[in-house]
């Protein structure tokens, strides 16, 4: 079968100990049976390992940091589009998604670059701080949580949430506090890094199980694969995991994707309690870094996303293999300083 040539740009090339999903997404695309994919890597920092993975990434352009805003990003993409004919762009970072969602229509109209992202409304609905409402609206159990702006408010919450309680940053980081003293320490730590508000959440005990999923934006879940982490790094990232056969978990996940009409890839993080209840802890608005496991189990989610972005109808995956494991490893690339110089001085390589 002749493969169709497609050019896809992807961010998240930081394949480090706390990896971005870019490289796993690219691996999925490179293994597509129907697409011949040229990859344009989009980087933020000059030492993102993906920049130097020449067998996976064909060309790299640096992007302005998300804090620069959407118009600077659009300007940069206009330049990149003048050099490369990009068919689809897959952003893989939480922090950059807001900008990409904002300019997604312009990208399509002006530069003919397709994306496959949720609307701003749905994107905002699943924010950590809105999880309670999200759970209620889409019929999924979530731990009780409260947003606070003052450390004093922890005292008031003690009666309702008890210890241990979880202190979370608005975008990232979560700490389990056993005492008021610990909770206040974590509060300040989180504020220093992520600002206000801080989320105080009920601590639900059980086993963490995660689902990588993809929705078509019209109420169909195109694919979902469940995984349990087997080895976790000190940053809480999965270094090894195994695919599960858990019908109830998949049903709940599909319900969330379908009811919310989620468009694009996402990761659902759950706690399964001893009584076999599932609590949604978070919905991450992009593929997880372990998305390549889905490909290994028989569901190539990145390929499905590209096809949908190009306007094709994609049939939902109906099954996958359980008992497939991923085991991460670290690897040293030897790179000449000239390569580093190229990306550092010209912003492309």
């Amino acid at each position, binding site marked *: 079968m002749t493969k169709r040539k497609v050019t896809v740009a992807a961010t998240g090339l930081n394949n480090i100990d706390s990896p971005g999903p870019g490289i796993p997404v690219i691996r999925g695309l490179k293994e597509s049976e129907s697409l011949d994919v040229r990859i344009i890597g989009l980087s933020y920092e000059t030492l993102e390992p993906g920049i130097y993975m020449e067998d996976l990434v064909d060309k790299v352009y640096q992007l302005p940091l998300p804090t620069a805003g959407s118009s600077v990003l659009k300007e940069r993409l206009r330049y990149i589009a003048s050099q490369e004919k990009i068919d689809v762009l897959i952003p893989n970072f939480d922090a950059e998604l807001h900008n990409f969602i904002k300019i997604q229509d312009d990208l399509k109209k002006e530069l003919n670059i397709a994306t496959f992202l949720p609307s701003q409304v749905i994107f905002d609905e699943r924010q950590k701080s809105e999880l309670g409402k999200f759970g209620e609206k889409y019929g999924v159990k979530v731990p009780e949580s409260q947003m606070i702006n003052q450390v004093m408010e922890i005292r008031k919450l003690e009666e309702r949430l008890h210890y241990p309680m979880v202190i979370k940053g608005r975008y990232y980081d979560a700490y389990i506090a056993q005492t008021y003293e610990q909770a206040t320490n974590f509060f300040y730590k989180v504020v220093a890094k992520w600002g206000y508000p801080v989320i105080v959440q009920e601590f639900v005990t059980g*086993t963490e199980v995660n689902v990588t999923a993809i929705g078509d934006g019209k109420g169909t879940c195109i694919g979902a694969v469940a*995984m*349990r982490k*087997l080895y976790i790094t000190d940053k809480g990232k999965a270094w090894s*995991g*195994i*695919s*599960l*056969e*858990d019908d109830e978990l998949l049903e709940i996940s599909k319900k969330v994707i379908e009811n919310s009409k989620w468009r694009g890839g996402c990761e659902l993080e759950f706690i399964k309690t001893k009584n076999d209840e599932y609590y949604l802890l978070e919905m991450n608005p992009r593929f997880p870094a372990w998305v390549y496991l889905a490909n290994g189990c028989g569901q190539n989610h990145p390929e499905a996303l590209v096809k949908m972005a190009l306007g094709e109808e994609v049939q939902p995956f109906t099954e996958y293999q*359980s*008992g497939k494991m991923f085991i991460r490893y670290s690897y040293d690339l030897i790179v000449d300083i000239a390569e580093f110089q190229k990306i550092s001085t010209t912003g492309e390589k």
Partner: protein
Amino acid sequence: MKVRKNIAISENGFIFNPLTGDSFSVNETGVFILQKLKEEETIEAILQSLMDEYELDTYTAEKDLNDFLSMLKSYQLITND
């Protein structure tokens, strides 16, 4: 008592539970009991087979079998129905 749906048991005693992702290793006796459970034999029949196969007295066989069954239960590998 029944082995839960889809639990994989290999001949060399490796058990995989696809619902939880847990895996275990059991010895030859463990495999013997699990195979009997998979074949839906009654506990009484398994006890008798255990006594015959390993030349055990009723007290020892019963104690070991019950210990093993409660362990399987705690790891969600078997159910009561």
